[in-house]
């Protein structure tokens, strides 16, 4: 159904440097009218930079952008850009203290009498817009109170409501659960029927095959190939992204079975999070990865946060037999619990501090005698994890804020692993992470848990859950099902969506 | 519709002589604190009723609203010490229009009707300090002057008079003017710099003893310059205020002189005029019963108090307020 003829947007030879960094060396892309075009590439390949160029926020050092054959508007003319292209950016771009309604209509608030902004009308229109998107959010809420999912849906709804005929979605699905993803895809398809063109960026290759007609691959800041998805099977697509023919190893495919007599390393007895979860009983044994699935309202994330000591909880938690005092991160860490937060932009790292510093933040006490932290030791430790997790960085001294999303995620993972924990609690470990990085992250989880450790892996992504030895499903704060390794996708999804009372 | 601002608050009622409201200009200096202590004492002596005592903390806006508040509380005469002599004018005229006499202590308002100004001339302070220094130094040498805040009238008067006197009478004396904003620390740094660049410095005029005395002595002590007047390295120091610490320092020979600013007289004579004003008397130019002279101003009268120069010779004079029991 994708048309041919003049591309909706065409970028040729776009170059963008940031100081010594070349973010884009040769960014070229042509999107045909009416298609959904995928843009893939490893973390840091320059995708988001190109998005910046295509939306007029980044001025390229060289190269051209044309919309429908016409040269792009001047950088200053935001109105013209916004009429041409709508975008959901990779990083959250809501104003947290403004209401959802106002975020949806930022700088284009509906006006009423005397040309003044009509808040009533704005709320009404926002409610209609949100309803048409089935986003169950009160338009009067301040945006800071939204969950990640809600926030993203609001951003998507807002961007699409601008009426542009060309829409860019930069990793819209990275943090969405599967039903939300399906809703999004349904919406995209419907708009495509109406002739809207999409550029879709994702590290979820199955999504690319599901939704898109054509795909462009970037590697090392350059355009590598553009072709139809049919012509580029998964192997070749990955090879194009990674730059070598080696196929991907499926992490965890050959995990040995957990012996029945393996010692429990994490025991939950009657654990509850007031108002959200509980009571939950669960045991993770040494050498075992237990997945936790469930919808956003199921409480899986809150459970993980409570285990990490970030939320108050009830019940008994023991790590390797030692009872952990609730409500204290330090106690959890000291007991041997490594934690990877679910939203790296919030509490995953300190963006101004270096990779080394972030990666070793939980083990600062081991980096020197007494209270001292020896930079040499810290850097050595950091170099080790950079190599181990394949973090793409200039070195241990680069601030994490400068890393691409996926690489920042690896740093957060390094922090979780740093204390040599008995058990890992990981929330959405591969959100926004490229295919190779996902392999290395999941590979790390797999490798780290083969012998002594256990892991609790909280995720919406089936691919992540594949690594697990068993998966429990949390609905309404309770464990409703348990699937041993080799679960069948349909069954698990049915359970997650489950039983009609899934939402709230 | 529009109207011109009218006096507000209750007009003075005619019952009895009524009380006096006193506004203190600031609470952070030794001199004004001594003054504050003298006020109730002298009020009792003069037999006037104190309606209220407020403090305007060196802020003319606070002063104005304090005055409003005191009038509301029944003050029939006001004693104030407006540190901003320009800004108080309109308020004075308003008070005069309502028949409330104002005694201005220490400063002479630029405009606005006053019943009486009670002050020792700040220009005279500067001139006296200059004369003393000039004579002690024999008309030549280098002198540092610690000026107060440039936005303070009194400081400015002292600076101008000092400069004028030095320029006309002792042209061979070099004066380094150091603005200090009444901060001891800045005076110290300035003095230290001058002692380094001009080791032959012979004299210091500090415009406020309360602020500059200790810091100056500290520097001199550390540099070994705190020597008796007989020593050729001695630096002649003239201070201003007449607080007890200065008198002590004079006795010890650490400084040479100070111009005594009479805190007790400011309070006593200020309230004296307040009583006369309440009694309905009109002042007249000429000598007074307390050894001073009243002169007529365009906007009122001024009682010019003497400002004695205190040196080693008269430092033990019991008439000096700094030797009194008040502090």
């Amino acid at each position, binding site marked *: 159904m994708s048309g041919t003829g003049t591309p909706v947007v065409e970028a040729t030879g776009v170059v963008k440097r940031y100081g010594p960094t070349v973010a884009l060396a040769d960014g070229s892309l042509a999107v045909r009218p009416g298609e959904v075009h995928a843009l893939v590439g490893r973390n840091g390949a320059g995708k988001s930079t190109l998005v910046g160029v295509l939306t007029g926020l980044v001025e390229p050092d060289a190269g051209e952008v044309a919309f429908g054959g016409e040269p792009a508007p001047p950088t200053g003319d935001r109105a013209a850009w916004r009429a041409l292209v709508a975008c959901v950016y990779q990083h959250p771009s809501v104003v947290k203290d403004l209401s959802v309604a106002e975020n949806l209509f930022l700088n284009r608030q509906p006006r009423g009498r005397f040309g003044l902004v009509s808040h009533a009308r704005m709320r009404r229109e926002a409610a209609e817009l949100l309803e048409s998107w089935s986003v169950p959010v009160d338009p009067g809420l301040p945006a800071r109170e939204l969950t990640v999912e809600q926030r993203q849906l609001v951003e998507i709804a807002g961007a699409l409501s601008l009426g542009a005929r060309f829409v860019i979605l930069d990793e819209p699905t990275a943090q969405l659960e599967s039903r939300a993803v399906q809703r999004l895809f349904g919406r995209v398809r419907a708009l495509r029927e109406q002739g809207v063109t999409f550029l879709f960026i994702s590290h979820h290759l199955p999504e690319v095959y599901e939704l898109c007609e054509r795909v462009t691959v970037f590697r090392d800041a350059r355009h590598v190939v553009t072709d139809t998805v049919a012509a580029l099977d998964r192997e070749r697509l990955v090879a194009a992204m990674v730059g070598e023919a080696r196929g991907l190893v499926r992490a965890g495919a050959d995990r040995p079975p957990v012996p029945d007599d393996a010692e429990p390393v994490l025991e939950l007895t009657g654990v509850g999070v007031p108002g959200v979860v509980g009571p939950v009983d669960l045991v993770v044994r040494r050498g075992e990865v237990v997945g936790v699935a469930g919808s956003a309202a199921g409480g899986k994330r809150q459970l993980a946060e409570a285990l990490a000591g970030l939320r108050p909880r009830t019940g008994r938690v023991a790590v390797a037999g030692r009872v952990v005092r609730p409500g204290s991160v330090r106690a959890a860490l000291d007991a041997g619990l490594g934690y990877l937060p679910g939203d790296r932009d919030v509490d995953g790292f300190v963006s101004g501090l270096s990779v080394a510093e972030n990666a070793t933040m939980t083990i600062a006490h081991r980096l020197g005698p007494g209270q001292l932290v020896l930079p040499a030791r810290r850097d050595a430790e950091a170099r080790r994890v950079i190599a181990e997790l394949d973090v793409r960085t200039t070195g241990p001294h680069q601030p994490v804020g400068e890393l691409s999303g996926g690489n920042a995620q690896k740093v957060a993972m390094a922090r979780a692993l740093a204390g040599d924990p008995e058990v890992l609690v990981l929330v959405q470990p591969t959100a926004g992470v490229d295919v190779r990085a996902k392999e290395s992250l999941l590979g790390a989880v797999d490798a780290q848990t083969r012998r002594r450790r256990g892991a609790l892996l909280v995720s919406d992504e089936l691919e992540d859950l594949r690594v697990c030895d068993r998966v429990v499903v949390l609905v309404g704060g309770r464990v409703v099902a348990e699937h041993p390794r080799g679960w069948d996708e349909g069954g698990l999804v049915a359970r997650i969506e489950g039983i009609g009372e899934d939402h709230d | 519709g529009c109207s011109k601002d009218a006096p507000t608050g209750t007009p003075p009622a005619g019952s009895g002589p009524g009380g006096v409201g006193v506004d203190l200009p600031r609470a952070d200096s030794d001199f004004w604190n001594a003054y504050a202590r003298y006020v109730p004492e002298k009020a009792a002596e003069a037999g006037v009723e104190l309606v209220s005592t407020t403090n305007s903390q060196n802020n003319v806006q606070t002063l104005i609203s304090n005055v409003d508040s005191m009038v509301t509380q029944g003050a029939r005469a006001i004693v104030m010490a407006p540190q901003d002599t320009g800004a108080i004018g309109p308020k004075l005229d308003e008070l005069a229009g309502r028949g409330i006499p104002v005694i201005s202590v220490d400063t002479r308002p630029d405009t606005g009707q006053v019943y009486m100004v009670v002050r020792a001339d700040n220009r005279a302070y500067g001139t006296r300090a200059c004369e003393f220094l000039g004579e002690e130094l024999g008309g030549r040498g280098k002198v540092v002057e610690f000026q107060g805040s*440039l936005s303070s009238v009194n400081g400015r008067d002292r600076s101008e008079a000092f400069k004028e006197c030095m320029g006309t009478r002792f042209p061979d004396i070099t004066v380094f003017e150091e603005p200090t904003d009444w901060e001891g620390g800045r005076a110290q740094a300035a003095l230290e710099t001058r002692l380094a660049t001009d080791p032959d410095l012979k004299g210091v005029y500090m415009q406020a003893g309360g602020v500059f005395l200790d810091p100056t002595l500290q520097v001199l002590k550390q540099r070994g310059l705190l020597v008796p007047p007989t020593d050729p390295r001695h630096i002649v120091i003239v201070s201003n205020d007449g607080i007890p610490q200065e008198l002590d320092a004079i006795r010890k020979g650490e400084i040479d002189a100070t111009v005594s600013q009479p805190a007790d007289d400011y309070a006593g004579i200020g309230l004296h005029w307040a009583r006369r004003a309440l009694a309905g008397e009109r002042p007249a130019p000429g000598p007074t019963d307390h050894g001073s002279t009243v002169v007529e101003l365009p906007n009122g009268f001024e009682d010019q108090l003497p400002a004695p120069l205190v040196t080693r010779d008269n430092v033990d004079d019991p008439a000096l307020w700094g030797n009194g029991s008040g502090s």
Partner: protein
Amino acid sequence: MTSAATGTDAPGDGTGPPGGSPAGRARPANRLRLARLRDLALVPPIVALLVYGWTLKPDLFLTKAYLVDTVLKYQTELALVVLAEALVLIVGKFDLSLESVVGIAPAIAVFLVVGGADLPGTPWPTWTVLPVALLIGGLVGLFNGLLIVRFTLSAFIVTLAVLIALRGLQLAVVGGATMSNLANRVPVIDHLGSLRFLTLPISVWVVVVCFGVGIVVLGYTRVGRSLYAVGGNPAAARAAGIRVERVVWVTLVVAGVLAAFAGLMLSARLGSVAANQGDGMIFTVFAAAVIGGISLDGGKGTLFGALTGVVLLGLIQNVLTLAQVRADQIQAVNGLVILVALVLARLTSGKAQD
């Protein structure tokens, strides 16, 4: 006004899809109450002060004449500068130099009019006082904007340096001597200082009008709303097509103009321009704005809240004077009362202040 400014007002009817998640759908009524509460957080302490003042002077305190002429009239210039600072804070910046504008703008404008300057054409006609003062305020804002927006320097330090420089300049202009007796020499100043309209002083009307306009603009125009967006998340604002730099720049200029107007009003009330006019005012300005709910992080707070902050501080001063608190204790008590007001506001609104 309240709901508009906080943006957290919710519709009373259930327009959302059926079965929305409870997390997202806090009950509208509650939310509404909370938003209003935050704006009205200072009302209880204000009422308490009014009652206390009334017990001190039952016959007098609660009369219009007293409240207007001894409380409000003295807060008008502060209110205007707080308005200016609130705008700057909401847009996510900082302006310390406003206190120096309060001094320098009327100083130069009056200087040009009453003579002493060597400039061609001086002394200028007296009517120029108003436009020249406002122009100077605007120019200072423009200069701040140049350094903050163009050179991307820290607003705090830029305006601190400008503050120091302008204070110095003012000393040089006024020459240490207060320019006085202006009411008789400059009619504009006389009018501004003493005219009344419907029994209220002009300056009170100026504040009412400025805050009224400010509340409408901030709450109900796109430009006004964009201040919140820029202060809250400049990147998102830019992506939404808001010209972030321009908004910041214009806000700084408007703030300068407002501060200049405040300075002129102050000079009019005092009938003079002192060498230290405005000196030390900025602490009070920040105290009023922040107590009134304006966040230093940008993007938060309402002008109405800021106004309650001004009224609260004014009342505290007045009541402490009335209560004859000793001069050397009045400041300590003042600070304590501010702390208590703060804790009260915190308890009432039930939210962390930031």
